């Protein structure tokens, strides 16, 4: 066989392989109900999203052991949108039209959600979105199981003001929509509490910012004006490790200037030496260290599933646990997998969260959750120092001019942006 024939054979084989793969994919057993998992397994977001895929696989596995839903086994369909936003939309379309999934659990970043939104609306399917986000949205086809700003940011600021007597605030974030909105809301909130403009420092950095020397020293300087100062960090995933390393090295201790973060959980801390970070805070709706029977069982199950005794759990994972349980209950209540029926059945459904309460799906498609404040411990876990009762998620922030009159209500008003002042649907 000459070199050229070999080459041709390889080429042919590769092409044939691709074709076979293409045609093989849609064919599968008929009797199962498909559930789509839309989380990036490669690219920059894989760091956060991969575990969510695993959690979903585990939950579906468990459900099947219990006999599935409505007597049918569930089948997970995993796709990789590769941290590429248009690819999210493409994959969502593929899941809904080609694989005919009954619901999709997925997305992490706001932009990925925004990208798939039109697809879910057009094809009328269901998305469970498990991450804390900036709010200002309530869509018929999306169920938001992560925190809205009022379920994370505001209670955290309240805690600092009350317990730590903080009077001066640094709002540091990555320059994208979630921090921008959260900081806008916080700024308005703090001013309403009598904090002066000169006592608020807002700073934005690009994604993946890695050189924090200047900013950390600015924070240090801002913090020596004679008033108790705290940092509210909406810094996104990747940039956190160098940020905290710089904080530790410049000797900013939690007792001097505490940092409360909204995007740093157990998963992120696993990559940092946490000893210098002792006492810095995070606000979430769930911590692995919460001691409840539900949580203990979940952690045990997760460690067994991952075959790793050091595997950590975090807040978005809990959101998927709640969301999945709610979906199963809603399907059972509707006695159907039909999206319209499930969407109608979901509001009002209750499911236990892992911190000892019962979360409820609200008419605005957000859920009720407790807000927990945790301090970083030396072992990379959080010590819960404050816990609120169940807080209802606001789709529209009451602190922003544009949205203070809006409510989402898919039960009575059948509208995501109902204006209570004008009594009309559609924002204005």
């Amino acid at each position: 066989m000459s070199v050229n024939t070999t080459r041709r054979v390889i080429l042919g084989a590769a092409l044939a392989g691709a074709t076979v793969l293409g045609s093989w994919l849609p064919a599968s057993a008929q009797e199962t109900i498909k559930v789509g998992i839309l989380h990036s397994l490669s690219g920059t977001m894989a760091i956060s999203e991969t575990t969510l895929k695993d959690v979903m696989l585990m939950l579906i596995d468990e459900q099947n052991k219990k006999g599935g839903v409505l007597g049918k086994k569930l089948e997970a369909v995993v796709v990789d949108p590769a941290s590429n936003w248009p690819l999210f939309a493409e994959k969502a379309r593929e899941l809904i039209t080609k694989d005919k999934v009954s619901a999709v659990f997925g997305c992490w970043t706001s932009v990925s959600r925004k990208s798939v939104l039109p697809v879910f609306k057009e094809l009328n399917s269901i998305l469970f979105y498990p991450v804390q986000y900036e709010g200002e949205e309530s869509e018929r086809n999306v169920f938001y199981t992560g925190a809205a700003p009022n379920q994370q940011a505001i209670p955290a600021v309240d805690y600092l003001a009350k317990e730590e007597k903080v009077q001066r605030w640094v709002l540091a974030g990555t320059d994208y929509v979630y921090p921008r909105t959260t900081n806008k809301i916080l700024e308005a909130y703090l001013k309403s509490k009598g904090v002066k403009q000169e006592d608020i420092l807002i700073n934005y950095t690009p994604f993946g910012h890695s050189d924090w020397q200047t900013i950390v020293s600015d924070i240090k300087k801002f913090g020596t004006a004679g008033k108790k100062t705290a940092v509210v960090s909406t810094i996104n995933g990747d940039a956190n490790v160098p940020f905290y390393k710089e904080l530790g090295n410049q000797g900013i201790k939690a007792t001097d200037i505490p940092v409360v973060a909204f995007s740093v959980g157990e998963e992120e801390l696993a990559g940092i030496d946490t000893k210098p970070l002792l006492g810095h805070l995070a606000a979430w709706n769930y911590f692995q260290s919460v001691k409840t029977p539900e949580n203990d069982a979940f952690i045990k199950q997760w460690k067994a599933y991952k075959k790793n005794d050091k595997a950590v759990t975090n807040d978005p994972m809990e959101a998927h646990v709640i969301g999945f349980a709610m979906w199963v209950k809603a399907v059972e209540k509707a006695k159907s997998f039909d999206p319209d029926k499930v969407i109608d059945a979901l509001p009002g459904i209750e499911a236990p969260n892992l911190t000892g309460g019962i979360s409820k799906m609200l008419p605005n498609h957000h859920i009720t959750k407790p807000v927990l404040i945790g301090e970083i411990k030396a072992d990379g876990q959080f010590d819960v120092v404050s816990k609120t009762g169940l807080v209802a998620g606001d789709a529209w922030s009451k602190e922003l001019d544009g949205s203070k009159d809006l409510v989402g209500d898919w039960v009575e008003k059948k509208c995501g942006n109902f204006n209570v002042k004008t009594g009309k649907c559609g924002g204005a």
Partner: protein
Amino acid sequence: MISRFLLQNMDKRGYAFLAIVAAIGILVPLLNLAVPAGSPLHVPTSTMSLWGKYLCYALLAISLDLVWGYCGILSLGHGAFFALGGYAMGMYLMRQIGSRGTYGNPILPDFMVFLNWQELPWYWYGFSSFPFAMLMVLLAPGLLAFIFGWFAFRSRVTGVYLSIITQALTYALLLAFFRNDMGFGGNNGLTDFKDILGFNVQAQATRAALFSMTCVMLIAGFLIARGIVVSKLGKVVIAIRDAESRTRFLGYRVDRFKLFVFTVSACMAGVAGALYVPQVGIINPSEFAPANSIETVIWVAVGGRGTLVGAALGAVVVNYAKTVFTSGFMAPYWLFALGALFVFVTIFMPKGILGTAQQLWEKRRKPAPTATPEPAPAE
């Protein structure tokens, strides 16, 4: 005269390409709209919009092949022109939403309302008009390419230096567009479009029309690019690629030729971006990511550079492979496949799919090959 210009010396491959694209452009929307969903001949809307995306990429690849394959300018920033065209279209689509946004503001797009902007920034004026937006689709990337090229080519920045500063260009734009203060929606970009020219972008018929339009533009882009490369100007451009200073000593103003091709190419990339946005439904700064531009280069290399048809083929093949590999059991491993494909192609198929196929074909026809010159030296 124009048709003479566009069709001169058309070869079999070119006609085949035109025929295929034209057939796709007519048949696919027809099979989507006219054939009932149950029929085996029916083309689902998802497939159609997927292929619409591939064809936009094909146009982008042709635009890159024009500068890289024929003029030796390896642009690692072509994604920037694509994205600028996309943003121009996106801005038009945003303005079309009107008061149907979540906040119901008749002028400001949602993301501005929600960050408390009071009025529309001046650079958003005019985008409510379709002709103006289409003009900007050509002008924004074209002007950027013209200004950038004006400086770079006059200063005789060539080779890897040029490649790296085109990369710097797209990287700087990436950072700039990520900034929310720029007024382009930051990381979330522009999305949730409603209408284009009064038609619902989600509607099946609109999608079909957009698909056909993409085919038309791909044909137009191909004809223009081909018209350029087979003209005497094309010969000059190839001469520049192979021996730049020699061309200069023949009296050709190399910088002007490069500038012309580069600008035309950028406009073409802008058109591709403009068609891409309504079909995909979002435009966001990540389109400026240097990795995207590199990937475009790879499509061209895979298909065969300096062939135009090959570039389009490469774009479709690589993206189809990506679609296939990112689903199912291959999902965690698709990067291995993609990476291996690039290594394989560069080592074993330096002329790409089309070039290799052509070589094999020629070898079969006449067993004694004429001496072919070595590949072009360092660009």
